[in-house]
C-alpha cells in the first residue's frame, strides 16, 4: 500500500458515477498544511460552542465528497443538483425527513452546503435535526440544523433517495 498517495491526494482519475451512470466531476485539491489546520481548530473551538467537532482531518474532501463519495473526493458544490437528480433523490417536506436523508443549504439561491441528517427528534409536531457535515476546509461537525456558519445561509431543502424507484422511473420516462 502506498500511504503517501492515499493520505495526500484524492485521485480524480478514478471516476465515480451516480446510479444512473452520470460521471461526477471531481477536483484534485491539495490538503492544507497540518500546522494551519491545528491553529484553525483552536479558533474554531472558541467560536463554535454548540457544534461538536467530529474530526479535523486535512484530507482534502468537502461536504459534497463526504455525503456522496465517502470522503474520497472533492466535488464542487455546483454539481450537487445533478448528483441529486441522477442519483434519484427526491425533494421532501421537513415532516418526512428521516435519518440518512440529505439537507441542502442555500444563501440567496446559491447552494452553499450539504449535510447528512443523523438524528431526528420530535417534540409534538416539531421536528429537530442533527446534521453531520464537513465545513469547507475545517473539520466535520455534528450540529443542529440551523447551527451553521453565516455564509451557509438560512434556507434548507431536504432530499431523500428512499423513493429511488419512483425517481428512476420518472427520469427514464423523460429520456
Amino acid at each position, binding site marked *: 500500500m502506498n500511504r503517501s498517495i492515499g493520505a*495526500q491526494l484524492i485521485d*480524480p482519475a478514478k471516476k465515480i458515477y451516480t446510479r444512473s451512470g452520470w460521471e461526477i466531476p*471531481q*477536483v*484534485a*485539491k*491539495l*490538503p*492544507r*498544511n*497540518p500546522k*494551519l489546520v491545528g*491553529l*484553525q481548530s*483552536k*479558533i*474554531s473551538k472558541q*467560536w463554535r460552542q454548540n457544534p461538536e467537532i467530529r474530526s479535523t482531518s486535512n484530507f*482534502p474532501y*468537502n*461536504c*459534497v465528497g463526504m455525503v456522496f463519495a465517502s470522503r474520497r473526493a472533492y466535488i*464542487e*458544490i*455546483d454539481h450537487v443538483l445533478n448528483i441529486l437528480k441522477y442519483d434519484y433523490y427526491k425533494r421532501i417536506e421537513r415532516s418526512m425527513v428521516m435519518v440518512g436523508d440529505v439537507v441542502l443549504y442555500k*444563501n440567496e439561491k*446559491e*447552494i*452553499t*452546503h450539504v449535510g447528512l441528517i443523523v438524528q431526528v427528534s420530535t417534540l409534538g409536531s416539531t421536528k429537530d435535526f442533527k446534521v453531520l457535515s464537513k*465545513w*469547507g*476546509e*475545517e473539520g466535520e461537525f455534528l450540529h443542529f440544523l440551523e447551527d451553521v*456558519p453565516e*455564509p*451557509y445561509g438560512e434556507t434548507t431543502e431536504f432530499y431523500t433517495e428512499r423513493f429511488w424507484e419512483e425517481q428512476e422511473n420518472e427520469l427514464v420516462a423523460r429520456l
Partner: protein
Amino acid sequence: MNLSHVFESIESVEFETFFAVIDNVRIFDSYLGKHEILIDLIEQAKNDSRIIDEISRHVLELGKDNETIQFQHRHDIPIAAYLFVLRKTKLVTAFLSANALANIPNFWWASKIAKSIVEEVSHGTSATSATPANEPSQSSVTHSGTGKMIYSFPSIKKTTLEKTEYSSLARVS
C-alpha cells in the same frame, strides 16, 4: 491607515478560519466584498495609488513564501483577498499580479479570484482610463485540478504608464 496592521488582520488565522468554511466561489467572493477590513482597504486604496502598489508588492512576497507545494499554499486565502482588493481598485494591477503568481501550482481560492480577474479583463471592463490601445483580445484561463493557473494572456497593448507599473512589479519579483 496603518497598512501593516491591515495586512496582519487579513493574514490572521481568524480571517482564514472565517473563509475556510466556504465551498461556493460566488459566496466566497460575496463575503470578501462584505468583510469590513476589505471594504475599508478598498476605499482607502481608491484614494491612494501607493496602497495599490504596496498590496501588489506584498502579494508577490507572500506568493514566494511557499514552504512546500505538497500542501495548499499557506497564504492562499489572504492572497485571494488581496487579489480581490486589486480587482476592485485597479484591474490592470490585479491582472499583472495574477500573472506574476501564475506559476505557483498550489493555490485554490487565489486561482479562482485570479480567474475572475482574467474574465473581467476579457470582457473589457477595465478599471484603467479608457484608451483605444488597451483593448484586450480573448484571454482564457484553465484551472487544473491542483489549482495551478494556466493562462493564455490577451495581447494588451500597454500604455506608457502601465509599462512602468509592469516593470516595477517585475523588479520586485
